[in-house]
């Protein structure tokens, strides 16, 4: 006679278990299922597409009525088991059905946790667990209705996205500071938050629910900070709790869940627990993969095969259309772990592998997740990845590819080839120093030879010389650290400023574990810039972290005097301005007056204490700081264009003035120089500028990424536009992209080389919405930045900078 197998619960785990069982031994058991829900087995994971309208209930049924029939399974729908008689070995349902068992599987799943705040019982408060919940939500989802989802975890976010797709106005309230904090690291969580906000879903992190408002139905939600969010539906998605009441009532051992051994047996050897109600080695699982592993184990145990469930490492995928996100394993930061990170900002891609003892222990993928299972497989198998490490992050497609030899070109250079142009250091001098003094790092080479210590453009070459000289012994950091105060590179620091919402330098040094108490002259100006760029209007500029020129708004000269350059918009000046400049030069006995390359006038040799008075006089004549000292917008050089020139096609001077008036005051990673030429003869030399415009008959060719300094480089054509307004929008958006992505002191051409021209074109030219967003952010930042620093200091700001603390002008004779 067949043995009797009774299953309480008809979720996904028992469904999968039966599939395995019937495959192993189709005729061993008579199976009876009690299902409290009045339905057949459906794929609970696919509730989200049903909620969003991308699928219907019928689409997500895994086992229809015919499957039960075909396999001889008795299914009691809508029948809730209320008691287990372990002596008689029977179960009894509320509807009076009684069934005898030889083996019993409890798969009662879990119930959603409801926070017992005031108002939690009001109609309109729903959880997100089964099809009934989905139906309740859909009933409330009239367009323009408002919903609040409590919980920024997997379920909460899926619910939020689904409701949004149904046309609702959705806010997610999350207790922690980042979304899905158990599955994602902060950078990926940040990307996710951005994506949701882009879809119009409002996210409130670090928000605790105080109460749910309403008399007879939900009217709104009140947060601990007093904020009230009006809404007609509140979705609680704050977690699940194993359903253990039945087991408990039957004297089966229960902790958080029903306790099982590696064979998934409870303390009664004929009773198993499966799925979200089970607790194995102290862990209760809520994700599908472990439940399937458990299901297989029970099926094998039921047919008396040796089987054991050893616990699971979990991976997660968020099921929201258009959001690619994958995480698995352990990705917390710790001392003994290393990480490999790959970012592609323009595509919104973030990949991070956490590695310990040469094995992958954690994977977080955002934006591009196809390699997730491949990484996860290596993780589960504990594969040693040291051999493929260099290419690992690029995924399966690149695995095992031949590594390129990056040192070949440098090896071929003759010994006297100059490596560092700034300091005149040749190859042999560096290689000799490496071998004689036992140097092992870039910093060592900088310290001993000065190579790469000035402009840094030869760092890559020096690094290759280190590789060449030391071979395997040279351990280049995966990222070039910002400075000696940290192991983080510029990109990581910028990412973390955003991810961790860092808004001051001390906070940054604490949270990013700076190795020095207050940084150094390299990192502090960079950090100050990153914070200004990230938090316009919020971050308070740290004057002591600025290089002297930006601190006193003039250029220090070799003798400690300063030079002063007033703005001449688009290179235009007037008799009155020139007269005022002449008067200032006379009045303050300024020894040198020079015309600059950026079409303005430089007053050289001004004493520091005279600076405010000089500025005051220049201000009085209507002139403001030319920011000739700034990592910011410098000049917009122009030719006379169609106003005067017989070849001019457009008003290049006018456009230059408009650009300069729109963009002055902006801080950027490094200086930014513009030029506008009125025709392709290019008298303003626009094609070697950071950003250049060449006017043509049909409009404006916008160029960028030129250089005429340490390097000489012609610009790249970004795009062609028809109007001045379009030109200004593109240029400001481009500048903003650079402001957000550039590393401190990295000129536009270097930034463009690093991130790739294509990604810049995608962001600024092809994707109109992105361009508008960059433009809007630039414009917003400008509202805080367009204050003339000279006028501020004339009126007393930072007065201590310009005055000696005390003067002892005369030698006083001894008494």
């Amino acid at each position: 006679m067949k043995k009797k197998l009774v299953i309480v619960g008809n979720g996904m785990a028992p469904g999968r278990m039966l599939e395995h069982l019937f495959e192993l031994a189709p005729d061993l058991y008579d199976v009876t299922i009690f299902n409290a829900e009045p339905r057949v087995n459906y794929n609970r994971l696919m509730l989200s597409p049903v909620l969003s309208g991308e699928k219907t209930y019928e689409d997500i049924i895994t086992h229809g009525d015919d499957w039960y029939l075909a396999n001889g399974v008795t299914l009691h729908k809508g029948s809730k088991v209320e008691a287990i008689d372990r002596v008689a070995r029977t179960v009894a349902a509320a509807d009076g059905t009684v069934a005898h068992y030889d083996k019993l599987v409890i798969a009662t799943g879990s119930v959603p946790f409801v926070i017992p705040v005031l108002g939690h019982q009001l109609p309109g408060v729903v959880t997100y667990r089964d099809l009934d919940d989905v139906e309740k939500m859909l009933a409330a989802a009239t367009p323009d209705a408002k919903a609040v989802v409590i919980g920024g975890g997997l379920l909460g976010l899926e619910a939020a996205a689904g409701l949004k797709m149904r046309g609702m106005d959705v806010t997610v309230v999350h207790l922690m500071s980042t979304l899905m904090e158990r599955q994602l690291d902060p950078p990926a969580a940040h990307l996710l938050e951005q994506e949701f906000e882009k879809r119009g879903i409002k996210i409130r992190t670090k928000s605790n629910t105080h109460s749910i408002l309403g008399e007879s139905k939900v009217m709104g939600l009140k947060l601990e900070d007093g904020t009230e969010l009006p809404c007609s539906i509140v979705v609680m998605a704050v977690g699940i709790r194993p359903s253990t009441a039945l087991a408990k009532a039957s004297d089966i051992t229960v902790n958080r869940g029903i306790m099982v051994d590696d064979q998934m047996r409870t303390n009664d050897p004929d009773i198993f627990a499966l799925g979200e109600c089970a607790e194995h080695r102290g862990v209760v699982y809520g994700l599908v993969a472990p439940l399937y592993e458990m299901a297989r184990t029970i099926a094998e145990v039921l047919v008396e095969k040796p089987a054991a469930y050893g616990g699971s490492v979990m991976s997660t995928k968020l099921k929201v259309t258009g959001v690619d996100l994958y995480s698995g394993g352990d990705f917390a930061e710790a001392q003994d772990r290393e990480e490999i990170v790959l970012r592609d900002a323009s595509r919104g891609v973030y990949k991070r592998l956490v590695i310990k003892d040469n094995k992958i222990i954690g994977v977080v993928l955002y934006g591009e997740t196809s390699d997730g299972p491949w990484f996860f497989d290596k993780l589960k198998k504990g594969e040693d990845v040291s051999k493929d490490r260099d290419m690992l992050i690029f995924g399966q497609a690149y695995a095992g590819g031949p590594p390129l030899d990056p040192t070949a070109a440098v090896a071929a250079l003759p010994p006297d080839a100059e490596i560092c142009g700034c300091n005149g250091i040749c190859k042999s001098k560096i290689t000799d120093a490496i071998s004689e003094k036992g140097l092992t790092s870039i910093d060592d080479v900088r310290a001993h030879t000065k190579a790469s210590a000035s402009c840094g453009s030869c760092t890559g070459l020096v690094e290759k010389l280190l590789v060449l000289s030391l071979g395997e012994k040279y351990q280049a950091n995966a990222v070039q650290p910002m400075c000696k105060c940290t192991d983080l590179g510029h990109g990581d620091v910028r990412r973390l400023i955003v991810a961790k919402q860092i808004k001051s330098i001390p906070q940054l040094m604490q949270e990013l574990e700076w190795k020095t108490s207050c940084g150094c002259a390299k990192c502090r100006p960079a950090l100050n810039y990153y914070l200004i760029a990230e938090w316009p209007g919020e971050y308070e500029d740290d004057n002591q972290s600025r290089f002297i020129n930006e601190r006193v708004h003039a250029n220090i000269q070799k003798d400690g005097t300063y030079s002063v350059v007033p703005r001449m918009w688009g290179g235009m000046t007037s008799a009155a301005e020139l007269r005022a400049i002449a008067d200032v030069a006379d009045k303050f006995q300024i020894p040198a007056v020079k015309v600059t390359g950026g079409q303005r006038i430089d007053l050289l040799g001004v004493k520091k204490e005279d600076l405010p008075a000089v500025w005051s006089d220049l201000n009085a004549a209507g002139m403001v700081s030319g920011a000739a000292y700034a990592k910011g917008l410098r000049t917009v050089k122009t030719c006379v264009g169609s106003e005067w020139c017989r070849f001019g096609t457009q008003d290049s001077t006018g456009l230059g003035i408009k650009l300069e008036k729109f963009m002055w005051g902006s801080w950027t990673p490094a200086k930014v120089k513009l030029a506008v030429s009125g025709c392709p003869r290019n008298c303003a030399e626009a094609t070697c500028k950071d950003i250049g415009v060449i006017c043509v008959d049909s409009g404006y060719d916008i160029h960028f990424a030129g250089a005429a300094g340490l390097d000489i480089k012609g610009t790249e054509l970004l795009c062609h536009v028809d109007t001045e307004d379009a030109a200004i929008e593109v240029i400001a958006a481009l500048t903003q992209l650079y402001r957000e992505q550039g590393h401190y002191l990295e000129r536009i051409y270097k930034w463009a080389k690093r991130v790739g021209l294509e990604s810049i074109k995608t962001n600024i030219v092809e994707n109109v919405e992105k361009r508008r967003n960059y433009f809007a952010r630039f414009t917003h930042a400008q509202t805080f930045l367009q204050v003339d620093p000279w006028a501020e200091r004339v009126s007393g700001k930072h007065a201590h900078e310009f005055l000696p603390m005390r003067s002892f002008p005369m030698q006083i004779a001894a008494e």
Partner: protein
Amino acid sequence: MNWIDIGAVDDVPVRGSRVVTTTAGDIAIFKTADSRVFALWDKCPHKGGPLSQGIVHDDSVTCPLHNWVIGLEAGEVRGPDQGCARKVETRLEAGRILLPSHILGRKAA
């Protein structure tokens, strides 16, 4: 040694410096993040750059001209470069900074 009051500790910005001018040249008064005060003649041993204009970090200052790093306590050049800026003794009394009178080119009254 006689000492002359040149101003309050509060007059010097944290992680910053002020200058005291004398007939023999400027003296840079530095204040670190933890409010320690140091004084050096305002000349970098490299090319005479005004150290008072540099960025103060921990107990050192980076010269604004060529980024030499100078220790504030003794004026020694940090790192592989060689040299020393001249140190000026300081004394703190009740929130005031005092410098030796002979350094300031005058004797105490």
